[in-house]
């Protein structure tokens, strides 16, 4: 066991895809090789992540793995990576979804080597975000994720790709640059209070500051994170980015990038500024509830299948944030589990829309329809993941949503009741999607081939996970128990923190 711990698993996890990306760039002329290389590397990362999950399935409090090395000592920046139950689940999800993304991009023919290099670079950035425990290191990975996504949207996207790519980059950068100032401010407050210069999360926790300062610093962190989530007033970059992104881009965007926002809030925002975070909970709940209904309504009005799924992401992330805002064991575990669930179902739906688009060259709901009779296997998966997405009991989203709802009822019955109505709305837009795409009259001549084995493998793997998470989520929740109660202990219990303002 000690041998196992002395190998720097976390560094390997981050640097394996990075090395793969560089290799892909170097070999970019040999397109087939690059594709297989990307598959091999993302498979390797997934196996590593699954191995870590198997090793730490019992969960437990504190860091399961931890690495700490000097990096830029003069500025007080260290290279610290750490893994607890929350990061473990998200790392596992990243490994799985990246593998999916590589597989659904198998037919990319333009600049193939460059494409797969970007995917792997993205994986390194995302894993880094989920593992970094030094704020500057975290910021570095946080920004590093943006660059490959910018290129993925801008080079392989659809008609308005450049607009969407630049909007995505500027929106997310706007939040994070203010966060950088807040990080520096926190560091300086810590140093002024007599602490050794440091950017480490552990060291900066409990830095004493006035309420006003705490409010401002937390505000900067919060803004960066809710843009990424995205919560309703700052969500406008997401539909554009999703609509224009290539399939793999959408899968990663919805499945992983949105999660980094919630993760940042949990890992850094709340522990660093407990009082301000506590005060912000009702507001977060309010925004989350508005988001659930607003996004559901907009989703219902969409004519483009991909845009509909994109808006459904905003609504689903509203549920996750509500779980955070309720701030008790049940709701928090549910929220984190829901991140994983949403990553899987939405990833699958984007992959399916992408497969339809590859065949039909359209994503307009009005131009599709009647697929059930012609491509039954594809239609089956479409129906299956749509049902999962609207929260059918027995499938994965139900497990997360019910925990969030129970937790929300405990915190404030009004929140729980309102969110419950949101589930009905979700049913409305998902059923409209299913109705428009696979039922109804067939429009146009459909003579497409049904799923190929590669696509079937991806969808079956995703579907099995949906069933596993829906029927028996216990192993995943077990991992979360320790870290979530740690988190809760950092803020005073808030069962009676009042209704929405």
């Amino acid at each position, binding site marked *: 066991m000690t041998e196992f711990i002395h190998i720097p698993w976390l560094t390997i996890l981050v640097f394996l895809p990075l090395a793969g990306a560089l290799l892909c760039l170097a070999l*970019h002329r040999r397109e087939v090789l690059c594709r297989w290389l990307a598959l091999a590397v993302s498979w390797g990362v997934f196996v590593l992540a699954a191995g870590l999950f198997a090793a730490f399935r019992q969960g437990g409090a504190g860091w399961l793995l931890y690495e700490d090395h*000097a*990096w*830029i*000592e*003069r*500025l007080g920046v260290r290279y610290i990576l750490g893994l607890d139950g929350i990061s473990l689940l998200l790392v596992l999800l990243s490994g799985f979804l990246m593998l999916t993304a590589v597989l659904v991009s198998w037919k990319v023919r333009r*600049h193939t080597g460059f494409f797969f290099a970007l995917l792997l670079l993205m994986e390194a950035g995302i894993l880094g975000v989920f593992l970094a425990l030094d704020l*500057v290191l975290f*910021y*570095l990975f946080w*920004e*590093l994720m*943006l*660059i490959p996504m*910018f*290129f993925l949207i*801008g*080079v392989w996207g659809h008609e308005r*790709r*450049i607009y969407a*790519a*630049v909007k995505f*980059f*500027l929106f997310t*950068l*706007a939040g994070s*640059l*203010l966060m*950088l*100032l807040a990080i*520096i*401010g926190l*560091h*300086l407050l810590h140093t002024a209070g007599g602490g050794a210069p440091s950017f480490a999360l552990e060291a900066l926790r409990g830095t004493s500051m006035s309420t006003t300062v705490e409010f401002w610093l937390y505000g900067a962190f919060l803004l960066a994170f809710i843009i990424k989530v995205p919560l309703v007033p700052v969500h406008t970059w997401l539909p554009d980015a999703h609509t224009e992104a290539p399939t793999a881009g959408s899968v990663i965007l919805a499945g992983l990038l949105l999660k980094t926002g919630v993760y940042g809030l949990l890992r850094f925002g709340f522990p660093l500024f407990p009082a301000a975070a506590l005060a912000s909970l009702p507001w977060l709940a309010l925004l989350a509830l508005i988001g659930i209904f607003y996004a559901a309504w907009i989703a219902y009005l969409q004519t483009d299948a991909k845009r509909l799924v994109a808006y459904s992401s905003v609504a689903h992330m509203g549920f996750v944030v509500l779980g955070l805002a309720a701030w008790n064991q049940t709701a928090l575990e549910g929220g984190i589990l829901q991140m994983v669930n949403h990553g899987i179902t939405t990833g699958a739906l984007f992959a399916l829309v992408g497969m339809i688009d590859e065949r039909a060259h359209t994503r307009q709901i009005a131009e599709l329809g009647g697929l059930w009779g012609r491509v039954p296997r594809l239609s089956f998966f479409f129906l299956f993941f749509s049902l999962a997405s609207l929260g059918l009991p027995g499938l994965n989203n139900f497990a997360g949503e019910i925990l969030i709802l129970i937790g929300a009822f405990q915190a404030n019955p009004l929140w729980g009741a309102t969110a419950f109505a949101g589930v009905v709305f979700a049913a409305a837009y998902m059923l409209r999607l299913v109705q428009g795409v696979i039922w109804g009259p067939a429009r146009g001549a459909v003579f497409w081939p049904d799923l190929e084995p590669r696509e079937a493998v991806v969808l079956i793997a995703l579907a099995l996970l949906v069933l596993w998470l829906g029927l028996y989520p216990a192993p995943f929740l077990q991992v979360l128990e320790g870290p979530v109660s740690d988190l809760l202990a950092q803020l005073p219990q808030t069962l009676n923190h009042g209704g929405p303002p």
Partner: protein
Amino acid sequence: MTWNDLVALTPILILALGSVAILMLGAWWPKRRELMALGSVTALAAALTAAVMTPPVEEIRGMFGAGPYARFFTTLWALTAALTLVLSGRYGAERRFSGGEYTALVLFAAAGMALLSGATSLVGLFLGLEAFTLVLYILIAFHREDDAGAEAGLKYLVMGAVATGFLAFGIALIFTSTGTFHLPEALSGLDPASGMRPVALLGWAMLILALGFKVSLVPFHLWTPDVYQGAPAPVAGLLATGSKGAVFAVLLSLTAGLAVGWDDLRPLLWVLCVLSLLVGTLCALRQDNLKRMLAYSSVVHMGYVLMALIAAGAAGHTALVFYLTAYVAMNLGAFGVIASFSTATREPQELEDLRGLGYRHPLRSAALAIFLFSLAGVPPSAGFIGKFAIFVATLDAGFVALAVLGVLASLVSVYYYLRVVVVLYMSVEDAPSLHPGTREEGAVLALCALATLGLGILPAPLLDLIGRLIP
């Protein structure tokens, strides 16, 4: 002048004497590429000497420093000159630049920059500054058949002459108020107890104004875009990095010794910094020409360096020197890419010229993208660490508004840098044929790109080095 002084001057003597030797050699042996290569070797020799030797004296005749600080910049500028000469090899040959004169001028410019960076007296400052500005007037207009170059040279000459006038007058006033040229004592004129304080303040204001011209701080920046656009790309690179960096290096020694009076000067610098950030950013947004965009972006970057100067203290000064070093790597690289794409008849400056180059010339386009992301301050790059260090120092010194403005400027700047990246990678691939580039050019660009990324990923050694040499 004693033997020890001469020994201490060795690196600069290598540059200056090498310059003269190559000038004479060129008269008998007019081979362009060979002379430029010889020039690079000379500059490298000077850089190496400055890096490894320990001079017997710390200061030469009360004029120039020979300590670690001066030697660091001597190394940096000699390296810059060497890289500039390599980039000029094919570029110059195709434009029929005479090898001897051109090489000699670049080496001489490096000597001037090295002297200026290490100046410890006002006379040394004046000599160093004039030594390389005079050379740059010629270099900017070196391509005789290019009208834009001649115009640019003239513009820089007129502006530079005015600045020189202010500089000389400012130095005279400071001398009047204190009776010495040696910096540590010359700064005492600002002491409120001194009866000559108003004179000294006026002198200082003129000094800052003149130096502001050289580093193109707003409102003294108007020459910058035209001169950059007109100058040959390698010269523009030298102009953007070396000449500005050397001025900031001496500004650091000027203000570091300023025990009194700093509080009176700081508001002036503050205003210049804010203006440079605002105006530079807004103007850069509107450029469709890469060189003009880089010119305005250099105005913004000088604003950042000024921010580090205002923050002062060990943290601010370390950040300043680190930022200058990073700036050399990424900006010289950016101009180097333009130079390496240039054909015998034209330079690809307009954004339109770069359409889809990312796929036609992947390596150099990737290098350009790295330089631009670094200029924008996106991690992991030297530009990010530089800005980060500056923001830490600025906030620590209590200038919250300045730091917020810097962050906002940095956010907007991403837009104009991304525009270039978008053209490189996301537009239809119908770029006109550009030069495939030579192996030497590729090596220089690779070196700059490696430095840009390397200093972003492992900045600790350089930061430690700088921390030791800040006076």
